[in-house]
């Protein structure tokens, strides 16, 4: 164990041990450890194998930014060991290495695979013979990647919560700037949420000497009522909604003001062997030492471009690391940190940087040299090879501006530091801290206070005193001098070995140049071709290096190369997070439970769950013909249209008349669009002079109600519309025994004379107030009974009981479809499409062009009446038992000339029946259709009249 002495502000609890396993072997950790710190304490230096070349990778950032420590935890891949706290009993496994992390046979790809794996290799190699591709694909997928998903399981293994959170101010980032902003806004009365990726807010203060200040700020924020989500990852910015993944919950945060205090990301340097275990960012090395009391190495070489790296050298020395050499890229740097280093007697080389890391599976030495701005060794200087086991790099800070850019800010190049800054922030969005250019913790805290105060003031909070304080803070911030940094070169290599630009995807500097040579000379194209910035770090570590390399290869300036588009997710996140809870909004009839108890085979039908059948669709259909059947049709759309203008209103909407319909009578209606196309159909019953009861198709209910309401808003007639679809149950009692059953349940005179076909009456059925419609979608004597939904089971049960002596059976949707097809009753949307009008659909009688006044679609229907249709809807029969699929093609002159819309075998009729759109020349009784159906050629005979009871005698009986 390499723990060092107690560190001020350390996160570990030395009195509490935690045990877990890594690759099946027990590991002892301390409470507060991460997986990575515990393994590091145990001597592990290789934490993963790289995506493509299977090179060993060690800890780099220790902050959840890079891909180097991805592991599988309890079966879930893609977990960053450096930020995942240890839990008792957790099972951790390595990824992407066979047979083990320390001995990976696929490392051969690093040694010998180069010629076969250039950028886009899967388009170039492994493509012949073509039939072998599935094998290649399986092999390639097996040897590359960032972990494996477990086998699919029928049920979700972990719970994902969605939580919507409104706030006055959302602060993303819990470093000094974010905490300060949250405190200021909350203390002025704002409702504030703060999100931070770390296990506790504080940012780099926690590991760089400011832990007391960080924890004091966090305590003050909590006291002010700030809700702190940590660890939590802000995934993106979606028109003001910021999804935050924290714990098992996806928080959808809608805030009135946003403050991005996302900090800056320390950048690696590109040099030969820059991915070797032992190469570590200065922030990572300091976190190991100060938070987990670990010595990151025994002897260190440090390569920096600004004071941050120099300060790291001093801190690491205090932690017991021997500092072999510090290279500062700035020639002649003269800052307080430089002086402190020299005062401490540390060997400092300015104008120099590291050009190679030596070692096979761990850094053994660093090669340093004085370089020019392009990273080339200066003539007349010599390289130094410095033995070390830790190579600390600090390539400068890049503002973590992705969320700001997603919100609409612009990335502007800053030549002095060679980086892109987010500027031109959109209204309602503030930036604070390092992402806004602050160079140290004090500046960041000041900038956070300014942003927090500004956000609160923008919400109308605060007073004159707070305004004065804001002005004073702003003045202090304006007086802060910018820091000093040297832009890192694109690459500083020895010319031997690989220099990695992108650690996630194993993209080298050479690969970037190669992509430019192949013509992918824009940053967006190169990204897609090489996949640089597309890995788990989402460009945090590789965007700036890849821009520098693109600039070097194309000769363009970095400003001209520009950045790739910032896209969510900013942090990697399990796909399951977006799936939410596994519930699908489903409509159900109030009798649904009874259908299940009766053995109903329940399936989706549009938005509804419906009984397709009760186990015997053929028998159910025959029962309707021979005795009686009962089906739940509560899914039908139902509306009340009332007011003195109700009749005129319907006359304007439908192509036929309703103003002349007598109270107590029913008429069929086909609703048309303004282009005369069939939108929906249903029945309309006039309840009184100024009230109509309108039914629609099940799937069209909401659209029809919307259509009615839309036109009423335009016409402003004396009409009110109310959707009653869920309010009423509806059942259809149909069959030759239906009258007797109705008679047993109601005092109504159900004789044909008193209650004729297309009559609508109100009466109690089984004691329940009901509206009875004598209509017959299924072609037999029938009653549609509409009644309060909450009494659904009562009425259903009463009818079933009363019908029992008559052989009444429940029937489902499937037998209903056969029965309606026998009558050639259309299903809108199945037998019609967006081009179908009533003339072509064999319903010219529904269009009353002679009626007074205009109606929706009149002009179009007048035109349609005068032209020859392209196709007509007809019926067809097939005697031999073949049933073509719905959608099968009608063949005309060897090509497609129509399509089958409905087809079933009718056991009642003993033959296949169907409907199809055919050319007008074939729309005649007796014409022969040729149907192409999945390789078969079938013959059918056209019929233009209903297959069953064409004279409606049974319906009207």
């Amino acid at each position, binding site marked *: 164990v390499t723990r060092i002495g107690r560190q001020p502000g350390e996160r570990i609890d030395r009195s509490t041990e935690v045990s877990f396993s890594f690759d099946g072997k027990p590991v002892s950790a301390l409470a507060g450890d991460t997986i990575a710190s515990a393994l590091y304490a145990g001597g592990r230096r290789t934490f993963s194998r790289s995506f493509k070349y299977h090179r060993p990778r060690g800890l780099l950032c220790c902050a959840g930014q890079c891909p180097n420590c991805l592991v599988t935890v309890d079966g879930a891949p893609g977990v960053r060991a450096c930020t995942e706290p240890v839990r008792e009993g957790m099972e951790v496994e390595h990824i992407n290495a066979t047979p083990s992390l320390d001995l990976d046979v696929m490392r051969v790809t690093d040694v010998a695979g180069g010629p076969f794996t250039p950028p886009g290799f899967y388009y170039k190699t492994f493509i012949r013979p073509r039939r072998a591709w599935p094998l290649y694909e399986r092999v390639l997928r097996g040897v590359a990647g960032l972990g494996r998903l477990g086998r699919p399981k029928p049920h979700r293994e972990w719970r994902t919560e969605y939580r919507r959170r409104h706030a006055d101010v959302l602060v993303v980032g819990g470093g000094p700037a974010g905490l300060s902003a949250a405190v200021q806004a909350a203390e002025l009365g704002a409702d504030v949420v703060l999100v931070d990726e770390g296990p506790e807010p504080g940012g780099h203060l926690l590991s760089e000497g400011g832990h007391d200040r960080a924890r004091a700020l966090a305590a003050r924020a909590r006291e002010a009522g700030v809700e702190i989500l940590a660890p939590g990852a802000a995934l993106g910015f979606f028109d003001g909604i910021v999804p935050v993944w924290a714990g098992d919950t996806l928080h959808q945060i809608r805030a009135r003001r946003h403050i991005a205090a996302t900090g800056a990301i320390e950048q690696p340097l590109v040099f030969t062997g820059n991915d070797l275990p032992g190469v570590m960012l200065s922030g990572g090395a300091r976190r190991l030492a100060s938070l987990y009391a670990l010595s990151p190495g025994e002897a260190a070489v440090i390569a920096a471009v600004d004071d941050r790296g120099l300060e790291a050298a001093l801190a690491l020395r205090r932690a017991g690391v021997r500092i072999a050499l510090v290279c500062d890229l700035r020639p002649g740097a003269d800052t307080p940190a430089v002086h402190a280093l020299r005062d401490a007697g540390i060997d400092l080389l300015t104008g120099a940087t590291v050009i190679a890391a030596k070692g096979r599976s761990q850094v053994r030495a660093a090669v340093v040299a004085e370089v020019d701005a392009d990273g080339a060794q200066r003539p007349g200087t010599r390289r130094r090879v410095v033995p070390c086991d830790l190579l600390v790099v600090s390539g400068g800070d890049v503002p973590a501006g992705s969320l700001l850019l997603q919100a609409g800010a612009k990335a502007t190049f800053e030549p002095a530091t060679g980086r892109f800054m987010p500027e031109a922030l959109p209204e309602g969005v503030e930036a604070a801290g390092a992402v806004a250019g602050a160079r140290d913790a004090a500046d960041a805290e000041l900038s956070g206070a300014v942003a927090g105060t500004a956000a609160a003031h923008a919400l109308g909070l605060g007073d004159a005193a707070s305004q004065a304080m804001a002005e004073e803070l702003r003045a202090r911030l304006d007086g802060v001098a910018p820091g000093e940094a040297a832009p890192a070169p694109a690459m500083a290599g020895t010319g031997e070995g690989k220099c990695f630009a992108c650690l996630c995807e194993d993209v080298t500097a050479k690969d970037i140049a190669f992509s430019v040579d192949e013509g992918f000379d824009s940053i967006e194209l190169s990204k897609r071709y090489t996949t640089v910035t597309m890995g788990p770090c989402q460009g945090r570590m590789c965007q700036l290096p890849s821009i520098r390399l693109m600039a070097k290869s194309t000769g363009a300036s970095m400003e001209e190369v520009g950045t790739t588009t910032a896209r969510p997710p900013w942090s990697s996140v399990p796909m399951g997070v977006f799936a939410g809870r596994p519930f699908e909004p489903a409509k159900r009839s109030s009798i649904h439970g009874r259908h299940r108890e009766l053995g109903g085979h329940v399936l989706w039908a549009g938005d509804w769950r419906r009984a397709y059948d009760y186990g015997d669709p053929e028998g159910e259909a025959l029962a309707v013909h021979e005795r009686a059947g009962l089906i739940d049709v509560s899914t039908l759309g139902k509306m*009340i249209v009332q007011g003195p203008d109700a009749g005129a209103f319907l006359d304007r909407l439908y192509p036929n008349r309703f103003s002349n319909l007598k109270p107590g009578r029913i008429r069929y209606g086909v609703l048309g669009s303004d282009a005369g196309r069939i939108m929906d159909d249903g029945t309309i019953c006039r309840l009184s002079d100024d009230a109509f009861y309108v039914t629609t198709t099940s799937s069209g209910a909401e659209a029809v109600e919307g259509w009615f309401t839309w036109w009423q808003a335009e016409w402003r007639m004396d009409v009110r519309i109310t959707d009653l679809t869920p309010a*009423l149950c509806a059942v259809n009692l149909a069959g030759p025994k239906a009258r007797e059953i109705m008679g047993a349940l109601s005092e109504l005179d159900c004789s044909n004379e008193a209650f004729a076909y297309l009559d609508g009456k109100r009466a109690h059925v089984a004691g329940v107030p009901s509206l009875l419609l004598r209509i017959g979608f299924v072609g037999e004597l029938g009653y549609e009974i509409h009644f309060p939904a909450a*009494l659904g089971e009562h009425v259903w049960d009463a009818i079933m009981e009363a019908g029992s002596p008559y052989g009444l059976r429940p029937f489902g949707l499937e037998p209903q479809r056969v029965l309606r097809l026998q009558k050639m009753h259309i299903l809108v949307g199945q037998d019609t499409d967006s081009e179908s009008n009533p003339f072509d659909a064999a319903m010219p009688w529904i269009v009353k062009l002679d009626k007074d006044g205009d109606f929706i679609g009149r002009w179009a229907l007048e035109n349609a009446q005068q032209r020859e249709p392209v196709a007509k809807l007809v019926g067809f029969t097939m005697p031999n038992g073949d049933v073509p699929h719905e959608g099968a093609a009608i063949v005309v002159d060897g090509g497609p000339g129509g399509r089958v819309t409905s087809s079933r075998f009718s056991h009642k009729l003993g033959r296949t029946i169907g409907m199809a759109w055919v050319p007008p020349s074939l729309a005649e009784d007796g014409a022969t259709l040729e149907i192409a159906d999945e390789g078969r050629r079938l013959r059918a005979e056209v019929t233009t009249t209903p297959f069953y009871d064409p004279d409606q005698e049974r319906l009207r009986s």
Partner: protein
Amino acid sequence: VTLEFLSVDTARDGAVARSSVERALLSGGARMEVRDGWAVAADFGSVDAELRACAAAAGIAESSAMGKLELQGPAAALADIAPADLEPGRATRAGGAWWCTVHPERLLVLCPPAATAELRDGLEAAVAAAERTSLVELTTGLAAFTVIGPAAREILARLSALDLRPASFAERGFAPVSVGRVPAMVLRENGDRFLVLFGSAYAEYMWTALTDAGFALGASLVGADALERLGVAVGA
């Protein structure tokens, strides 16, 4: 026109109205009783335990039996019928009923089950005397669930984007909104008591979604007796 076929209270011969989630209530341990023509969950074994749950986290109750009447008409005409202090986004408590402005030309009136017939008759008379107005009973068209307790907001936040913070959604707040991806309306009756109304065809789905979210946050099922003890009887 008489729309009697929309009213549960005109049923006879022992017909009992039932919630679409009655089976779920029973499987949750409900003791059912017929009250005002509806089978309601009187309790789930212990009223005291239900009251403690409401105080500690949240109670979830089936409240669909309440009367629900929809008034439509010009805003001026509705103002003549409804209480004086109607305002968008807020419900008004008057005459033992909640008067909720769905939009300026549409009001939803909520009342205890036993008061439905009388209120309906009174409104029918008022509508008959007004111009361009109408009344439709939606008692069975809308299901209603009550969520009550300190965790109520968090439970609803699992299902809805409505801003439920007290400063944004004050007592008597009323909002048409999506809940669980379903069109719904939310009424904050008082304190931590929220009523969620939605198309009754979604009742089984909504019950599943709401209880799933609620149970994860410590909620319990609550019966009508517990609500009465809390002084929040259905629709009162």
